[in-house]
């Protein structure tokens, strides 16, 4: 069943919105049908994937590992496009770095999740010198600040 798409895509161009829509449908498809591809990947990457499968058991096969990584990457693309579109239409919905650091801490069960004020302060400090800092950078900085001086 297809989800309703009305009221989305305020800002994306028609071609981009159609592509996002189609990617999402294809990801939902998830059937058992497979295809051989002529995709070429670096030999070293292929060998690294094979080792990770045989020696570390990270996935049932190199194909499964590659497929899972590709799916995650495509899902991230779709999610970010939808979120960016939403932020454009609802600017107040866009989280700042402090919001994201708190959310990251909450998702992980990090002890600093209970101290949102400290995380917001750390976010403000780190954003001054590192405008592209990630929520995880903020958590690290907040943790470091919480350590007693040696």
């Amino acid at each position, binding site marked *: 069943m297809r989800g309703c*798409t*009305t009221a*989305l895509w305020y800002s994306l161009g028609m071609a981009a919105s159609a592509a996002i829509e189609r990617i999402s449908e294809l990801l939902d498809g998830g059937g058992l049908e497979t295809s051989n591809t002529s995709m070429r990947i670096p030999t070293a990457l292929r060998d690294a994937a094979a080792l990770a499968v045989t020696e570390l058991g990270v996935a049932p096969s190199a194909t499964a590992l590659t497929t899972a990584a590709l799916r995650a990457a495509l899902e991230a693309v779709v999610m970010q496009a939808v*979120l960016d579109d*939403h932020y454009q239409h609802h600017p107040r919905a866009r989280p700042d770095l402090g919001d*994201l650091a708190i*959310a990251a801490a*909450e998702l*992980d069960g990090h002890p600093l999740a209970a101290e949102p004020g400290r995380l917001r302060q750390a976010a403000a400090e780190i954003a001054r010198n590192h405008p592209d800092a990630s929520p995880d950078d903020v958590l690290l900085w907040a943790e470091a600040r919480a350590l007693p001086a040696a």
Partner: protein
Amino acid sequence: MTRLVVLDNEAAQALADPTHRKHRQVVSHVQVVASRKRRAAAIQVAVPTAVRVEAGWDRTSPAWAFPNHLRISDIPLDTAYANTAAAIHSQTGVPVADAHLGAVIQSAPAHQITVVTSDPGDMRLVAGDKDITIATI
């Protein structure tokens, strides 16, 4: 091992409604998941279908277009979940949606589930002895 982020009723409603006072908070959680997926982290957002019913989340309704596109998967109330949920419901008296959520929690691998919820007490109740992470909204 994939970390599963599960939404409760109010989290789902807050996500769908930009005027909801917790909208930005739940969007923050989804944004973190999207960023982590981009870095190839194994993480997934999901909603039990009974929670969807309670929240009024109809995937064919225009009102839910935004959450519909965020790659949030359904966890159906299948036979196994229904059995576990029935036991939780009769033991605790929680609503069916929370019992379904509890069944999802109890069947997930340890330390791999986060529940985004406005009712941490009920979530701990339905989780039984399962160690879960709770993101309170």
